[in-house]
């Protein structure tokens, strides 16, 4: 790495994310080698990531496995297991995001049987800022925004919303009670990110979840 040493100055020219990116490539190679399609689900705390995943767990059953990232507790993994999927909990112990190394470690503990598994969903730590810079080796990055958070959040957190493949707007059942302009949110997300696909759902009532799960399924069926 150390190319040129002058008397005092040492050239380094190394991307700070290079170690993470190497692990991300390893994860991608391992998972795609087994025919497993991987999602990285990012949102603020309380937007409904785990409820969306519970709903997906009921749709996909044992064909899906979940890695849960939280600062502390196994609560989310227990919810996913109850809904019918294998779950592995990463407790970051303070870190505000998952990195590819932590995911790589988790993969080493999971049963990645290629005959049974088709989909791996990684639930990132609830945070709209820090996870955006870390490639975990996913095939699809999903940003989840919930109606109570407000329709102005997309432009406030551009580094995340410019990097996602899919925007899921959750808690649509609350639309009648709140001033959330769905068209504005979608338009602002498309301005940052012209290729983004958008789904509107309520994981609680199930509204829109079947369409979303069908879309996820078609994504891994076409790449398999």
């Amino acid at each position, binding site marked *: 790495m150390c190319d040129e040493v002058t008397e005092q100055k040492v050239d380094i020219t190394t991307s*700070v994310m290079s170690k993470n990116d190497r692990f991300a490539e390893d994860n991608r190679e391992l998972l795609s080698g087994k025919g497993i399609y991987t999602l990285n689900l990012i949102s603020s705390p309380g937007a409904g990531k785990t409820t969306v995943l519970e709903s997906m767990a009921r749709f996909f059953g044992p064909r899906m496995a979940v890695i849960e990232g939280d600062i502390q507790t196994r609560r989310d993994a227990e919810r996913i297991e109850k809904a019918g999927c294998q779950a592995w909990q990463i407790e970051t112990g303070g870190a505000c995001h998952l990195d590819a190394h932590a995911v790589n470690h988790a993969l080493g503990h999971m049963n990645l049987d290629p005959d049974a598994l088709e989909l791996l969903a990684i639930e990132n730590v609830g945070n709209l800022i820090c996870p955006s*810079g870390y490639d975990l080796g996913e095939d699809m990055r999903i940003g989840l925004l919930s109606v109570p958070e407000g329709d102005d959040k997309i432009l406030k957190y551009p580094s995340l919303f410019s990097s996602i493949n899919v925007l899921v707007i959750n808690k649509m059942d609350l639309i009648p009670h709140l001033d959330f302009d769905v068209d504005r949110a979608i338009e602002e997300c498309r301005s940052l990110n*012209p290729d983004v696909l958008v789904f509107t759902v309520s994981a609680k009532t199930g509204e829109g979840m079947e369409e979303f799960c069908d879309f996820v399924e078609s994504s891994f069926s076409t790449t398999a």
Partner: protein
Amino acid sequence: MLPPELNGGFSMHELSLAHDMTRIIGSALGRKVHLDRVNITIGPLSGISAESLRFCFTEVARIEGFGEPDLVINLTKAKLICLDCDIEYEAKDFYQGCPDCGSISRRILSGREFTVDSVELEEGND
């Protein structure tokens, strides 16, 4: 070992990034020496707060045995392409629209970079 305020209770990704920087510097130099300057490049779309990084790096560098180097940050401009009029332009953040037509509909060409470029050793360390 980090003091408590920089460990459990203080979690932002700039702290992890500061640790990654000292790891990269240590492995490039093959040893821990006091540094005068650390030169880095940050793209405006990298999601990194330069001031948070400076705060974290100053502490992490000192604690890990690299002295108290100045962190010199080269803030680049992002390269974007306007999807309405097709021109390529530079921007200093996510919010700057096309200088020609004002549109903020665009594709990002670059601006997420974050590299450790070089370090300058303290006198007597070379």
